[in-house]
């Protein structure tokens, strides 16, 4: 198990990460979500050791990776840019990865290059999709038990994106790799993850499975002759998602049956449950003011 224990990190005197703890089991996929600037990349870079934590520890099977540096080759990282790999040739990259990761599976990596028709040699002729795929294959060929991916599907065409997601699912299921992925593509992320972490202002706001979340919250479409009654709107556990004329979409926390009965007594014109998505939860937790 990869354990992140009470991790804090400052960059230029600004506290970016505050007391973060969570676990990742092998063979599971964890999604890391949050607004731009929430600290996702800093968190990932601290876990893999590019940045060192100010407080707290990263443990693999109870061994602190700063005290036992050879545990570090149990974690592989794919950054959100391909700047690192694009300065090398495929051959040079293999040498770099073989040196960093004693369990690097060169044979499998070369097979995969053939399978996905990625040319050997310089990466100058590589498209963005090819670079991403190469980077992902390098990362998974390390033999590391934990793989950290920073926005791996960003800017990819649908075909490459599908391949990337398939590779992630495949390595998690057959090689028992524990995968941590940051992403803003919530629709695709929602379907592949076991649990998600919601990072907000440097703290983990929530660690949950989708099922736990859909048991705690539900989404309703309602319509009332005179619009949504203000007593309902003002309830603390009710968030109004949108409101147009008679119709409103609500996200409600807590007991479903009870709330449905309360609404039912007010003779709604329409009362229908809608599926709750990861995107809904995102807005619920951090839908505040928009800033860029």
């Amino acid at each position, binding site marked *: 198990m990869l354990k992140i224990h009470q991790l804090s990190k400052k960059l230029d005197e600004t506290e970016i990460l505050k007391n973060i703890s969570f676990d990742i089991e092998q063979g599971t996929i964890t999604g890391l979500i949050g607004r731009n600037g929430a600290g996702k990349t800093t968190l990932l870079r601290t876990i893999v050791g590019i940045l060192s934590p100010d407080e707290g520890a990263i443990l693999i099977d109870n061994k602190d990776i700063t005290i036992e540096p050879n545990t570090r080759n149990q974690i592989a990282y794919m950054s959100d840019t391909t700047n690192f790999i694009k300065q090398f040739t495929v051959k040079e990259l293999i040498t770099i990865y073989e040196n960093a990761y004693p369990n690097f599976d060169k044979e499998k990596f070369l097979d995969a290059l053939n399978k996905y028709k990625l040319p050997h040699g310089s990466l100058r002729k590589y498209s963005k999709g090819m670079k991403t795929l190469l980077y992902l294959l390098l990362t998974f060929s390390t033999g590391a038990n934990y793989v950290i991916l920073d926005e791996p599907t960003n800017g990819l065409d649908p075909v490459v994106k*599908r391949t990337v997601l398939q590779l992630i699912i495949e390595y998690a*299921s057959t090689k028992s790799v524990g995968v941590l992925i940051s992403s803003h593509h919530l629709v695709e992320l929602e379907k592949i993850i076991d649990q998600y972490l919601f990072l907000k202002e440097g703290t983990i706001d929530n660690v949950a499975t989708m099922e736990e979340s859909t048991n705690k919250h539900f989404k309703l479409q309602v319509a009332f002759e005179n619009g949504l009654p203000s007593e309902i709107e003002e309830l603390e556990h009710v968030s109004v998602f949108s409101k147009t004329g008679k119709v409103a979409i609500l996200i409600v926390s807590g007991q479903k049956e009870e709330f449905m009965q309360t609404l039912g007594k007010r003779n709604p014109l329409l009362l229908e*449950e809608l599926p709750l998505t990861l995107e809904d939860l995102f807005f619920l937790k951090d839908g505040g003011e928009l800033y860029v």
Partner: protein
Amino acid sequence: MIIVLDARSHLPLWEQIVLQVKEQILRNVLLNGDKLPSVRELATTLLINPNTVSRAYQELERSGIIETVRGKGTFVIGLTKESVSEQTILKYQNKFSNLLIESLMEGIDEELIINWVKEVYSKKGVE
């Protein structure tokens, strides 16, 4: 076996898989002895978490519809037709009568309901 997931459905993904496998068996698209894709295959085709597929398969296995043979794969063993227990009959009788009362109250007439029943049975491909 083709599974089509509906993102707008209330049903969790694993339940959608369970229902579609059952439906395909009823319609004779899947026959006894047919092999189902492995968990990994189905997960990578549908781009969903492997544990979601496992959960669906476990549920189907628990209801005796499929069977996993170690090292060989997962196979359809069909719906048991002969030995419906009294308890099961009672369970569905209750479910149906509740549903019928509700729909009759809403003004859906008997004929329409009978048509639905016939429709499902004709799609099933059994006399």
